[in-house]
Structures are given as C-alpha cells and as structure tokens.
C-alpha cells in the first residue's frame, strides 16, 4: 500500500469541509474589487481626494494608503493591496491555521486523522497545502479584477501585479503557518488566533505607518507586510529579496509547526 499521496487526501478533507470559504471569500472579494475598479474613473481627477491624501499622510498611512490616492497604483494599493486583500487572506489563513491542528484537536477530529497512516510531518504538509489552496483563489480573483481594471483607465503593470499576487499569498502563509505552529505548540485554537492576530496587527501597523513616522520607518523590515505590498511593490515590482524573506519566514514557521506537531498531545 502506498501512502505518498496521504497528505493530499488529508488536505482534500479539510478543503471539502471548508468549501464555502473556498467559494465565498473569493466571490465576495471579487465583488468588492470590481466596485473599487469601476469607481476609479470617477475619482481619478478628484483634486479634493488628492489633497486629502497629501495633507494627512499619517492618518492615511494608518489606513494603508501612502502617496497619491488618485494615481492608478495609489488607488489600487489604498483600496485593495495594502489593507483589504491582506485582511481577507489573513482571515482565511489564520483562521484555518488555528483550527487545522489545535481546533481539530479540541473538537476531536484530529485523533481520527492522526491515526491514519500519515506522519505528523505529512499532516503539517497537508495543512499548509490546504492553506495555500484556500489563499490562492482570493489573491488570483483580485488580480483578475485588477486586470479587468485596464478597461477602466486603471493601468497596473502586469509584472508587479503578478508579483504582488504571489507575495500576498505568501504573506497569508507566513501568518497562517504561525497560527498553525502556535496551535500545535499550545493545543489551543484561541491562543493561536489571539497571538497571531495580535502579531499580524502589529506588523500591519509597522508597515503602514512606516512612510509617515520616522522611527517606525527604521524598523519597517521586520514586517512581512512591508515585504509583500508595504514598500509600494505594486508600482515598483516585488523584489527577489521580498520573495526570499516571505518564503524563508514561511519555511522556518512550517519547520517550527512540524516540530511542535511531533510533540503535540492529540486527544
């Protein structure tokens, strides 16, 4: 009997269980993104909005907007990529990460799965695979909507857009893997959610306030949000360093999740 495909079957169980998230998050985000894209022609020449964003940089930074709000990149960043899309992706990945081991253990499902011929390492691989499968549609749907934006005077470069699409999935995996690791280490879904959400909020604030506050600007590199979209990657493109930082952090956290899962008490 071969069990190399075991993680795939385990991932499919979780994805099937969450098929509503799999459909409705991308769908909801598509609706929102299309509204944002379609509204652009109405706002692009709005001088009031332009001056608002220029005169209140700290306040705007808090909402993830920096630079011109009325430029194509500024508009899409401020309305999608520096706040709303990461928020949705993180809701999906952190929520799943916290429940995938700790939550399933709390409600008793994990014992059934962990007594199948699948190692703890394979179990974590299955969970990360499912996590990526939940995050990718959200990011890709947004990308498609932004591409459609080209018909609404919203020319975003394809290269940077593809880069951000990948980076934002990786951003989701960073925090999702953290939730998975904290859940495996503590056995508590609530702790995993709380710790990860708090850290994600902190990292978001660091990235979004960096352009406006100088001492935060100096520590901006500690925030995964900065690596994904915070440094204006939608305009300048995602660098190899950004991808390496996101992939490397995810890999370290997955390794920690595996170590924690191997010692986890499953009931």
């Amino acid at each position: 009997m071969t069990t190399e495909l075991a993680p795939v079957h385990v991932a499919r169980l979780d994805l099937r269980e969450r098929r509503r998230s799999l459909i409705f998050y991308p769908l909801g985000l598509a609706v929102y993104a299309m509204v944002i894209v379609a509204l652009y022609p109405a706002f692009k020449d709005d001088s009031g909005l332009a001056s608002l964003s220029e005169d209140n940089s700290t306040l705007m930074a808090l909402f993830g907007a920096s630079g011109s709000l009325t430029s194509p990149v500024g508009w899409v960043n401020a309305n999608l990529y520096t706040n709303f899309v990461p928020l949705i992706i993180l809701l999906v990945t952190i929520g799943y990460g916290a429940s995938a081991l700790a939550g399933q253990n709390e409600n008793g499902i994990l014992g059934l799965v962990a007594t199948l011929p699948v190692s703890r390492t394979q179990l974590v691989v299955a969970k990360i695979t499912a996590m990526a499968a939940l995050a990718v549609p959200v990011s890709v749907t947004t990308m498609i909507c932004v591409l459609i934006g080209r018909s609404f005077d919203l020319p975003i470069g394809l290269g940077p857009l593809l880069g951000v699409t990948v980076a934002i999935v990786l951003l989701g995996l960073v925090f999702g893997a953290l939730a998975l690791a904290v859940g495996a280490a503590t056995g508590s879904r609530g702790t995993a959610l709380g710790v990860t959400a708090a850290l994600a909020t902190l990292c978001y604030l660091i990235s979004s306030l960096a352009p406006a506050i100088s001492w935060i600007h100096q520590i901006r590199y500690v925030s995964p949000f900065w690596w994904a979209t915070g440094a204006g990657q939608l305009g300048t493109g995602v660098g190899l360093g950004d991808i390496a930082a996101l992939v490397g952090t995810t890999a370290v956290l997955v390794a920690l999740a595996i170590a924690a899962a191997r010692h986890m008490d499953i009931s």
Partner: protein
Amino acid sequence: MTAAIVAEGLTRSFGAHRAVDDVSFTVEVGEIFGFLGPNGAGKSTTIRLLLGLMRPDTGSITSLGCDPITDSVALHRHVGYLPGELAWFANLTGRVILERFAGVRGLQETTYRDELVERFDAELDRPVGQLSKGNRQKLGIVAAFMHRPRLLVLDEPTSGLDPLLQDSFARLMRESADAGATVFLSSHELDEVQRVVERLAIIRDGRIVVTDTIDGLRRRAPRRITLVFDRPTDPAAFAALEGVTLTHADDHEIALAVTGPMAPVLQCAAHHDVVDLTAPPTDLDTLFLSYYRDDHDDD
C-alpha cells in the same frame, strides 16, 4: 501466541494529575482484551499512548511490534481506531470521509466496506453534522474496520447503538478476532465487555487494579451468603473470620461476602441455630463494582 501490545510501567501526567500511573499489561495476538474502568480512570489516555497520539512520561509501549511514536505510520497502517467521543467533519458526508480515509490508506478494494455499510445500515449521503449519535457511531465502525486492521482499538464502541446493533457489533468483533485481529476493547460497562472478551484489565485512578480472565475473576469474586437464625445473633463472630466482610446484619439475619475459604464460615454457623442459608451464584457485577470503588487497593 505472541504479543500484540506490551505496555510496561506506562505513566503519563497532565499537570499535577496522574492520568496513567505505572500501567503494565500484555495483549496477545488474536485476543479480545477488555479494558474496564469508570469514566476518568485513564482508559482513553492509555489508548492514546498505545496509538502514539501522546508520549508517555515514563515507561514503554509496543503495539504490533512498533514503537507508536517513531513507527506511527507503519503501526497506523494496521490499526482501526474508534474513539470514545467520536467527532467528524460536520459538513462532509460519510461517503466523502470514507473515500478520503481509504485514499490515505491506499485502500482500493471496497467490498468489505460496502458489506459493513450494509450490515450496520450506515447513512453515507447526509452531512455527518446532521446525523444522530448512533449513525455517527456506525460510520466510525465502518471507518475502523473497513481495511481489516490487525489491531482494533475501540473506545466505548457501542455507545449510542441499539441492542440489536450492539449484538451485530459483538459478532463483528468476534469474527475479526477469529480472522486473527487483536481487539483492545475499552469500556466502562461490564455488560459490553464480559460477553466478548477472554481477558480483561480493570483500571481505576490511573492504575491497573486487576488483570485476569473472566473465569479467573469469577473465581476471585466474593461469594454472598445470607444466614437466617431463629434467635438474635451477634455478627461479630462472623466478621472476625479471615476473608469475610459483613454486608448486612439485623437480629435474625446476617449477610456476608466471603473471599477466603468457606469452611470456617460454615463451622461458625454450626455453633448458632441457622434456620436458612442462601448462597446465590457469583455476581460479576458486584465484583466489578468493588474494583471501581476503593475495596481493592493495589490488588
């Protein structure tokens, strides 16, 4: 016979609470082994240790010749596990769950699974979250048995099943054992256990208090004797005998539980005017309950 499970000095604590304390037992291949104890006695923790779901603090356990922690994949390939508090993916149907479980096991042959589904009338096409406890349990039975595992670990398997299905399930365990499988049957109910097992261990407060065959237990069981006298009689003379416990006494009647030899009791009775003597057959339930309470310390 060779051993399917060997546990030696297993100890596992959660904080200050010792859930399992120096537990040792051996289960032979092909045997149906009962593991009895009140709720919270350490049964489920022992099961988790033998499946490698948890690590012991001290002691060792070998299941099917494997270390459950380092050889978990090899062990789980041959294990069917039915947890005590069975939970499922609520949004999935039984069919999807069984397909995925079979996928993980690399199981392509579905004849036996289909036979089990039919035999237990398992509902496969509704989301598990909508099923009754009994129907969820049937699905658990199919999932645990469908790959004909060499070791079945069953935690309170018949909870939620009606008496007819309990019978069906007892037959299924018997058949599996006859085909060479080892069954580790954990329960808090003697009835569930005594009709199928050859041997059992009783666990209380994390410690094994007795391991024996059903026949052996019957021999150990205290014999109940009720003596009726024609005049008020002092029970002290009986209570002083070795292996005798006074369970009831009034002016004319004395009830005793005797674990030692019977002759001294009869000799003592002969000195009084006994008008009636009853000794009902050995009651395993009573013995069992006595192990549940504090009557047998560190037996």
